[in-house]
């Protein structure tokens, strides 16, 4: 059998079997993505008739992003992309502005109610979304927040705020207090010590939390599905609309839209890969 810890580099039967098993998983994991890419490059005539042999075209990506696609499928994908950027960017900024001070307080001091606040934040991560959305659906319709970007930014706090607060608390906890104490002794105010000393040191944490929060907000589907219509609806909802678009099947356009919608999270995730584990586990696993 293969070794448990890295070290030996011999070509044993166990090592070969292990590699074959790995290849097996990655064929399974990557095949759907490859297939989407192929489907996205087929012409309407080829989309249901061929599997691997066809003349590839990039036209579908253009169609999806322009008026032609909207006329064809009645899905305005370009404006959905823009809405996604505004909703998610707005939600992350609000979460950072509100979450960083709270994370700092919870990471730096033990005070009454701090654990309760943190636990409440975490429970949002695990609460069934519809429990909150159904009443919000009623409230939003009453106060006029239904199908608005402000309404979406508010409800997305359910996704972004727990991530930001929990990840950053774990970063602030790891920060030795001595550094700030030294700054205070040098005559800095608390606020300046925080801004000039603590904040720059957790910058990687802030970047990781912000990007991860953006990714999860981007990938969210239930909130815009129920709380938005044409004005504030996002990429994830738009992609599903291609499936039934106009009574006719545009599978190649669906695939192109799916790939475009999946691209931003993929690029962002690869750029923060080092911090991903800590972020995904809410600071529970540090690597």
């Amino acid at each position: 059998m293969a070794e448990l810890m890295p070290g030996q580099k011999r070509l044993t039967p166990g090592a070969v079997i292990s590699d074959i098993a790995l290849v097996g998983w990655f064929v399974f994991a990557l095949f759907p993505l490859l297939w989407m890419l192929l489907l996205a490059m087929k012409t309407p005539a080829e989309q249901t008739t061929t599997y691997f042999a066809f003349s590839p075209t990039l036209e579908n990506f253009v169609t999806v992003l322009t008026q032609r696609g909207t006329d064809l499928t009645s899905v305005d994908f370009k404006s959905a992309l823009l809405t996604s950027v505004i909703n998610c960017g707005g939600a992350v900024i609000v979460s950072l502005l509100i979450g960083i001070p709270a994370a700092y307080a919870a990471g730096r001091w033990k005070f009454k109610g701090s654990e309760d606040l943190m636990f409440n934040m975490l429970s949002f991560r695990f609460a069934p979304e519809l429990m909150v959305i159904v009443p919000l659906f009623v409230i939003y319709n009453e106060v006029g927040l239904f199908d608005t970007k402000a309404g979406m930014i508010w409800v997305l706090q359910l996704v972004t705020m727990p991530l930001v607060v929990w990840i950053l608390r774990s970063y602030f906890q790891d920060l030795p207090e001595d550094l700030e104490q030294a700054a205070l002794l040098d005559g800095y105010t608390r606020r300046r010590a925080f801004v000039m000393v603590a904040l720059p040191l957790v910058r990687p944490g802030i970047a990781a939390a912000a990007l991860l929060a953006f990714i999860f907000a981007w990938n969210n589907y239930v909130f815009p599905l129920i709380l938005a219509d044409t004005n504030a609806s996002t990429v994830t909802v738009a992609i599903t609309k291609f499936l039934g678009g106009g009574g006719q099947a545009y599978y190649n356009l669906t695939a192109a839209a799916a790939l475009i919608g999946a691209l931003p999270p993929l690029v962002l995730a690869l750029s923060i890969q080092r911090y991903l584990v800590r972020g995904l586990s809410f600071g529970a696993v540090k690597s």
Partner: protein
Amino acid sequence: MTTVTKERPTAPGPELPTVPDSRRRLRPYILSLPALLVVVGILYPFVLGAYYSILNYAAANPNPEVVWFANFASVLADSDFWTSVRITAVFAIAATVIETVLGVGIALLLNRSSFVGKIFEKVLILPLMIAPVIAGVMWKLMFNPQFGVLNYVLGLGSSFDWLSKNLALWSSILVDVWTYTPFVAILVLAGIRSLPREPFEASEVDGASWWYMFRRLMLPMMWPYILVAVIFRFMDCLKAFDSIFVLTAGGPGLATRTLQIGAYEDSITFQNYSRGSTYMFLLWIIVFITARYLVKVLGKAQRRAAGAEEE
């Protein structure tokens, strides 16, 4: 002055004399206040949802009355609800178990850092970062009996239906496994890489077998990491919605009607807010109890793993 702070690093540090004591004690609360307001703002609809569950509130009945536990009685007496409970349980348990076993396996294989592993590790997270709903769309296209690529590649012909009554639930689980196995794998891999090397080298010198080392050394030390992954996955699976909703919308029949999809049907499709909220309240109780239990197990495992590392 400096020496004093070094001796007591956790005690409240020195401050400028101009900052009054009361303000210093209030500081954490002031910093947390905006976040607290957000929490309250989100708890408000949550509590309102709980309140809906004792009303008879629906779009058709805009002036609801308190009916106390009538909704709970009717939901609990409804066989569709229990079908949803069973489907949710099967989905959550099967998906979590499969993802954990595969994820731990992949982590162990990647930890050997073979040439093949090093290449694949870079793309491991790709499925995880794709929106679950997009994953659902992708697999729906692949599942299609006529032109879907799966039946072609696997040689199943054009009559094999992945989303039929008997298979739809397992096909949904397959999509979840595709998306989230990397989540377990990267968490466990990070855990394995943080383990100390000495115990393994020592028992290798002693001539211990691979299986013995895995069971007696690695598994106990890794257990907390595995449990963190299990908690996240199981809790998320209990409220599975996105990918199932695009794949089957709960059908055919009730075949994939998880509790969240049931709640969606009741409250959004049929606009019976009270009944939907009752579903959600019951699901929330299940989630809450499960979370408490799993966190307790995690705490125990962390203490035991800390003990194992000291040995």
